[in-house]
């Protein structure tokens, strides 16, 4: 049975109280995903400034695709997995990269982390951005828990985090969520990703 709380199921996530600025929970390299920029090119420039590099060659993008696909499999792990060996098997079985999805977005790399940037065609006066970041060590997850406390669900082999901030005057929202495996890396050999962070921004007003 699939876990009820999926990262994108923001409808069931309540607004986190007393949140001064959710974007500040993110480490510097991920801040552009929580900012309002005018275009995909501008988001890319902001990410390059934070040390991300674009991937274009096939061998690079294949690696990125695998890491991201594993991250997305972690995002939707079923509940009730009996042991770490089964955890690895499920992630690898569910992590066939979706070429159609990944080929329609730019992928970036920074220190062994991989990011997919999604910027749908902007609607009038609205900017929508989504970043998916996958890898084996995502400092964003640590920063979220250290600075804000745990807000999510714990499962035997993984932890789900989710934070949500609605902007004032119905001017959009920022949602940050993540899943991290909580078993030692040596217990999940063969995985390229053990964590995923998903940042969704929705901003009224073009920069």
């Amino acid at each position: 049975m699939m876990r009820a709380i999926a990262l994108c199921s923001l409808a069931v996530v309540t607004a986190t109280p007393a949140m001064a600025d959710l974007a500040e929970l993110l480490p510097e390299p991920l801040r552009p995903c929580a900012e309002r920029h005018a275009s995909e090119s501008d988001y890319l420039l902001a990410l390059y400034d934070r040390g991300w590099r674009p991937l274009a060659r096939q061998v690079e993008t294949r690696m990125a695709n695998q890491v991201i696909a594993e991250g997305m499999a972690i995002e939707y792990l079923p509940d009730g997995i009996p042991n770490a060996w089964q955890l690895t098997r499920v992630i690898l079985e569910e992590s066939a990269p979706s070429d159609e999805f990944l080929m329609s977005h730019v992928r970036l790399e920074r220190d062994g982390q991989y990011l997919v940037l999604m910027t749908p065609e902007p609607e009038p006066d609205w900017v929508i951005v989504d970043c998916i970041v996958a890898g084996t060590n995502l400092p964003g997850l640590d920063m979220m828990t250290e600075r804000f406390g745990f807000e999510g669900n714990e499962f035997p082999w993984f932890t789900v985090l989710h934070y949500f901030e609605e902007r004032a005057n119905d001017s959009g929202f920022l949602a940050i969520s993540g899943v991290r495996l909580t078993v030692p890396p040596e217990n999940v050999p063969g995985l390229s990703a053990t964590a995923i962070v998903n940042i969704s921004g929705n901003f009224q007003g073009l920069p």
Partner: protein
Amino acid sequence: MTGPFKVATLGLNLACLTIAPAAAQDGLPPCLDPLPEPAAYQTAIEADGWALVTDPATRAEAELSAYLFLHANNFFPDAFATGADVVNFVQSAETALAQGRGPMQIFTRDGTVLGLVVDETYPETVNIVCLLAGNDLPLAAEYQAADPESFDMGAIRIGFLGLPVEDLVSTRAIVSIRLLGPEGFLRILPARDGILTQLIYSAVE
């Protein structure tokens, strides 16, 4: 296909040339003058300060940079509307390079890549194609400015220049290409400026 694929397709875009003085090749590697032996081009290029690339990984990256502009010359990519369009363009060049790979020697100098194709497939004819790739190559802009008929189409700005021919030389031409698009997209590319040269001469004395 190997060499003939590259040379023939480059030739397709050389039908209408603005004729430039021979001095237009100043600053280019020695690819536009006949040499006694085709093997002499490598020596001449190295004497011009270019270093032959032998490391396989470096070579693969540099070869793709050089080939990117031959691919652009052949297929005139549509304007880059998204970053993914750029990624897909690079990967289509990679695929075409893998399928149509001929022997190409790769050199570098000051961050610029040079690919050399020596094609002797056709009897008694030597085709020398050089592919220069880099970022903000001054010569690329100069060549486009020198060609009053240079134009933008899709994702490229392209200009063609012909150089004087003599005796055994039937073609001496320069094609300059600049890839166009938003800055954030262009940084995905391994290079954004390219200069292609073609020399065709008879090997019969």
